[in-house]
């Protein structure tokens, strides 16, 4: 069927084009981060610059740079926050999926209401500042991110399918629910726990809302917020150079430093992407089919 073949060619061309549209902009940023500043100033951003240079990375990695501090903050916040969030969500998921509990449905409604009705950022801000979180690392960990009812319902939907018969023996032996949750249910729920680990992890890593609302101390800036600030405040880049040997570069590599910072922010996501994608798609499908 010649017409079908024509369609197939068209199809491959269109999808390849879409995939390119999704990749090329990031490739552009990558290339700009390696472009010599003078070349950028003369020719703008290009896919094929005349000369490459490591100036930007040199400055970011060895200058008087806030990058390490921000990386440190982002990693601490992401790891700590995600770990606590997954445990809290897993435990609550166990409770509201356990059939013999009389009040599990009322509890589920209690959580569900907050998904539908959201008082907005002003009460959120007043409660967060009221708790004294402002300008502490907890401001980046606790508000909004530490628990998400959507993830709770993902866990519940998964745990509901675990048959009671698996826990009967343990119950007869006198095991309590905490033991059953941690030793029997959690190991059986690893796929969904991996999925929510990923959801929480990405939310923490990419969050800058908490920082813009609750943090003004530069040593608490997470990476994304550093990146946000960098775009408008060139003084930050000048400061990085202040400690450097002046002869290293005559022009302040401000454009390439911005792009290099963006690339370094994406770094961990690219590294984890194969894992991310697998569990992300799984979670998306559990969520969209049942929740």
């Amino acid at each position: 069927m010649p017409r079908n073949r024509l369609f197939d060619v068209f199809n491959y061309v269109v999808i390849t084009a879409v995939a390119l549209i999704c990749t090329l902009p990031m490739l552009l940023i990558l290339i700009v981060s390696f472009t010599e500043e003078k070349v950028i100033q003369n020719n703008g951003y290009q896919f094929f610059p005349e000369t490459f240079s490591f100036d930007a990375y040199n400055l970011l990695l060895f200058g008087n740079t806030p990058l390490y501090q921000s990386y440190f903050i982002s990693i601490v916040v992401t790891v700590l926050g995600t770990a606590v969030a997954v445990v809290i969500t897993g435990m609550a998921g166990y409770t509201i999926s356990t059939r013999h509990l009389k009040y599990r449905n009322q509890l589920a409604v209690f959580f569900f209401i907050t998904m539908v009705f959201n008082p907005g950022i002003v009460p959120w801000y007043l409660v967060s500042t009221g708790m004294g979180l402002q300008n502490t690392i907890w401001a980046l960990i606790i508000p909004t991110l530490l628990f998400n009812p959507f993830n709770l319902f993902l866990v519940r939907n998964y745990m509901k399918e675990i048959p009671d018969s698996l826990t009967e023996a343990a119950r007869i032996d006198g095991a309590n629910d905490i033991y059953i949750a941690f030793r029997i249910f959690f190991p059986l729920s690893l796929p969904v726990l991996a999925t929510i680990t990923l959801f929480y992890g990405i939310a923490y890593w990419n969050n800058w809302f908490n920082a813009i609302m609750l943090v003004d101390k530069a040593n608490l800036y997470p990476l994304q917020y550093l990146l946000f600030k960098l775009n408008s405040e060139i003084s930050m880049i000048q400061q990085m150079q202040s400690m450097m040997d002046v002869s290293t570069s005559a022009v302040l590599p401000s454009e390439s430093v911005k792009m290099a910072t963006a690339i370094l922010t994406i770094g961990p996501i690219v590294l984890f992407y194969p894992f991310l994608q697998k569990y992300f798609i799984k979670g998306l499908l559990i969520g969209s089919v049942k929740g």
Partner: protein
Amino acid sequence: MNEPKKKKGLLNELRNNFSAYVLVIPAALYTLIFGYITMPYMLIAFQKFNYRTGIFGSEWIGLDNFRFFFSSSRAWQITFNTLKLNFLFIVVGTLVALALAILFNELRSRWFSKVTQSTILFPHFLSWVVVSYIIYSIFSTEYGLANRMLDTIGLDRINWYASPEYWTAILVSSNVWKDVGISLVIYLAAITGIDGSYYEAGQIDGANRWQLVRHITLPLLMPTVIILSMLSLGKIMYGSFDMIYAIVKDNGLLYPTTDVIDTYVFRSLRNIGNPAQAMAIGLYQAVVGFILVWGSNKLVRRINPDNALF
């Protein structure tokens, strides 16, 4: 006599399943604080709020905060922008995702399908700050790709960051660019779930590829489309602060087409420092948002009860 019996039931239940209820405490406490204790603070919309004296010690001023907001011309502009942008995000996003899902379904090479799907999903994992850099690299007046292309074809450069008329399109495209992968994955899964015998029957009747798509795939995808759209509709009054503030920041030149309720609330709260006024706008946002969701759910229910959310 009913009351005490019930109470005893509650206590008994808690005592018998103590360890199970202990497990829910952290999440419940968290939800209580951030989901419920936040609620009374909505009342400051009717106050002249003072940080020092708090919600109990502030003066009640009725609807003054609302009056202030609605008497400015900005109220209608930001409401319009919020609805316009979200509506376009939903419609354009759905159409592109559906089109792609149908094209992907026709692919024979699984390898090609997998690799391209991963590529299209990837931007979803970027933060809006990173995306704002990408937009900047394309539309920056001095160095951006767009102006360089205009140079090469001999047209005048455009000062993008001072021309609000382009930004509806730019924001919609970047939203689709970032998030189309998700809907694509969901639609593709829904298509895979369609019973193959429908297609066999269609082929026997002599339907061509397009007719199979038109009369089998699309109608069977409609429930998924409606559910996803309804879920996005729930956020139609909420303007994705993350996205718009990362891209536009405090660039007042672009406000006419890009400023939304969320960014306006943010500025009243953080830059101007008036939480009561910000709350008044937030309350208006919540109420209109709720009415829209409730209304559209009712509409969907009337057309097809199975597709309603609640």
